[in-house]
């Protein structure tokens, strides 16, 4: 029997809102699941769809993308641009069979430490239920083995 499944969650967050919100969860000593790895970026506008694909390749079971609420972007409009990209990218991934539950999006402000903590717990639990994203991870495993030809 292999090890019990521990979800791997990669979060791409903007530094001004969600990263600060995650910091607030820390300063408030809120406890949440240790399964998330946070990648800090200046703005959700900087979060490229490629990041999501690479996180999946590296074995993420769920990817979270999070930034400032609409209207609150430190850079005034980065999150609006991001939202459009996500709408399209999400539809694309869904169409190619990458389940919507695997790519999550949220707005978490610098004041929403509690929301961040709860969300990470919820996503971790949901991912636990979904199980590992083996379909995608298999693609990587195949690469690492011998050529089949």
């Amino acid at each position, binding site marked *: 029997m292999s090890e019990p499944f521990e979800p791997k969650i990669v979060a791409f967050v903007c530094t001004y809102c969600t990263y600060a919100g995650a910091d607030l969860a820390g300063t408030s000593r809120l406890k949440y699941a240790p399964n998330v790895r946070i990648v800090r970026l200046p703005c959700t506008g900087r979060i*490229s769809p490629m990041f999501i694909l690479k996180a999946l390749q590296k074995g993420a079971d769920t990817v979270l993308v999070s930034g400032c609420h609409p209207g609150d972007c430190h850079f005034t409009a980065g999150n609006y641009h991001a939202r459009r990209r996500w709408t*399209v990218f999400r539809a694309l991934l869904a169409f190619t069979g990458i389940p919507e539950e695997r790519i999550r999006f949220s707005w978490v402000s610098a004041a929403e430490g509690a929301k961040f903590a709860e969300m990470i717990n919820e996503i971790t639990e949901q991912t636990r239920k979904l199980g590992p994203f083996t379909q995608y991870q298999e693609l990587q495993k195949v690469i690492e083995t011998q050529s089949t030809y």
Partner: protein
Amino acid sequence: MGIQEQYRSEAAALLSSGEVKLVIGFGEGSTADRRRPLFARTPEEAQKFVLDAACIANLSTYLVTEGLLSDGKKVAVFLKPDGIRSVNILISEAQLKPDQVVILGYAIDKAEITALEGRNISDFSLGEEIRSHTPPPHILQEAERIEEMNPAERFEFWKAHFSKCIKCYACRQVCPMCYCRRCIVDVNQPQWVSTSSHTLGNFEWNIVRAFHLAGRCAACGACDRACPVNIPLRLVNYRMGKEVIDAFDYCAGENSSQKPVLASFKQDDPETFIL
């Protein structure tokens, strides 16, 4: 006089008057049912143009050939509505100057071929036609069939298709919108897209290609026809086109002054999926 003769003489006139330096049209292909792009620089060469229902390629892709239009001279090109739509997109993305392109427009309806009025891009108003255009039933049916699958089935469907991909980039090379001097897939520092054509690399390439065309695709089907391993690229393109029109009421190539859909936004864009 049939449209073919009409356009032959018009092309010849454009060339002999010196209004254009080149006319891009169709000539006989290697078999009876094939037509191939033909480049005429003299009125004599223009007599070789063929125009019939087999002329389905989107020749606008040649307009973005590096250096073709940098001398400021004009080029005439045979275009169907999807090609004209492509020209709209290319103009809105500053890849073409409207005055440099003379359009010899035509439409194919089953085996019938008709001339389109107008020579300058501004003569064509395609907006409504494009919006009301529905793809052929076989595409709709296939797309629906995929939508009805569960994610795991969809993944398997595309895995089977993408695993065939040999990364020949024919889909990219025939696409008028793939005019980048350097494609993302050729960026190796860092290597976002695995260049190897294993299934993972193929997934990445095909997803990135579709994403880069979202809201920019003229639905000409060139990529789908070009694919030597028959990946149904039309389905992804169709799905992306549908998404931008449903979510943002944006239809690429309606006119030549659109802002790119992914470089603009509305404050009340839909966001049902965001927590």
